[in-house]
């Protein structure tokens, strides 16, 4: 009898408003490689998205990283100076490169 009752309730009501109050999206502690140029990356590459975007690409050649930096500047209007772009390209090639230029 009890069981039956439960089923009826489940059928008539659905599960609404499961979360009350503010939603907090957790922070992921990304294991980022520290090294020359990292502070420049930190200052320029983490405003619009997390470092997860970089890790998600896997190890890639220098031309790839240069292309991504260019895409950020040209398409998404990231305000990054030429000088910083070069520092970031070197950092990414050093720590997230695959040993190839192209």
């Amino acid at each position: 009898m009890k069981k039956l009752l439960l089923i009826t309730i489940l059928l008539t009501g659905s599960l609404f408003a499961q979360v009350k109050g503010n939603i907090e999206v957790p922070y992921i502690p990304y294991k980022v490689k520290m090294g020359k140029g990292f502070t420049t990356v930190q200052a320029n590459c983490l405003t619009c998205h997390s470092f997860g975007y970089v890790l998600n690409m896997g190890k890639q050649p220098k031309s790839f990283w240069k292309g991504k930096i260019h895409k950020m500047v040209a398409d998404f209007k990231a305000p990054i100076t030429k000088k910083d772009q070069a520092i970031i390209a070197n950092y990414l090639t050093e720590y997230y490169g695959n040993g190839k230029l192209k």
Partner: protein
Amino acid sequence: MKRRDFLKTSIAASAAILGTTELSADVHQARNYNNEISEVNFPEKARMIVHSDRPPLLESPMSTFTRGITENDKFFVRWHLPDIPQHYDPDKYTIEINGLVEKELKITLKELKTGFEQVEVAAVQQCGGNSRSSFSPITGGIQWGNGAMGCAKFKGVRLRDILNRAGLKKGASWVGFNGRETAAYYKTPDFVRELNMDELDDHVILAYEMNGEDLPYLNGYPIRLVIPGYYSDSWVKMLSHITVTNKYKHLFFMDKGYRIADNKCECETPDHLYKTTKPITIMNVKSIIGFPENGMKMYHNSEIVVRGVAWDDGAGISKVMVSTDNGKTWDEALLKQENGRYAYTEFRYAFKPAKYGKLTFMAKAINNLGAEQPLSKDIGWNRGGYKYNGIHEVTVEII
């Protein structure tokens, strides 16, 4: 599992016409640079593969693809811009309908639920970049494995009914949709989608419920657009504005994102990019094996039931073929289709391994129009890494 539960369709499939190029997709399939299930749980979500926290990019684990309906807590999450409002008062939430309409409307969530006919549609929601990491060489965009997809029963109101209530003015031909996510930097383009009126049919809905529950926050609570048959780039989340216009506006995410070579094979090479592109729109035929998973050890002489899902743009799946001899011979899997033509078709294939060592399962879906999935080596490359639908392969070890 009862065999009679499964529907077998009998429409004969003809060979598909699909382009090939010298460039191909990775034979090893989805590289999944990161296929680890994260220890960090996101609001309302079970353990997921986490590609990014800001904006949240959460991929569903492969085990999800053994069932026709994906649970809300395992449903993938994909935002474009990092600023997502943290809270809504459902009593105050409104969407605005403006532009070339007779009367501008502001509809509250409550009015949406009570003032219009309520409809339900089960539909596959798949990112245009799902399985992107299978392309080689690497393409632009987030390198998803196979889990940027799910299938749910969405409940809501027809977009058509809402537009009719507002009344379309002469010349109304485009509808723009904007949600509440915003960029961190003011010059970054907003994520607005535009659809032509001709593309809208009665199956397009403004959904507030998913699998009998409120939409999970990260899936677009309280209202999102659902366009069955279409890649989900246009399924705008946290919908705030619907704007009717007579002209197509040139917006970044329409003009540069989610486009593919405008030729028959929808393919190109990195050195010879095709000069014109088109939006990705409707989904191609595809299937994914949810069980077993790559690298699993399976017991000799113990029956393996391969389980997976197949879908297309709504033409409907007619067959799923499975091969255990690297594509030399194909055997028909059992199908279960209970949620309509836009939903997943579940498939099952029982196999008793007699030999030890490596064993590869391949699954190929064929739809009612005769279109079938190409081998991964025959997939044409495109710069954005969209629409990957190569035959899925899973290799296990028989011990």
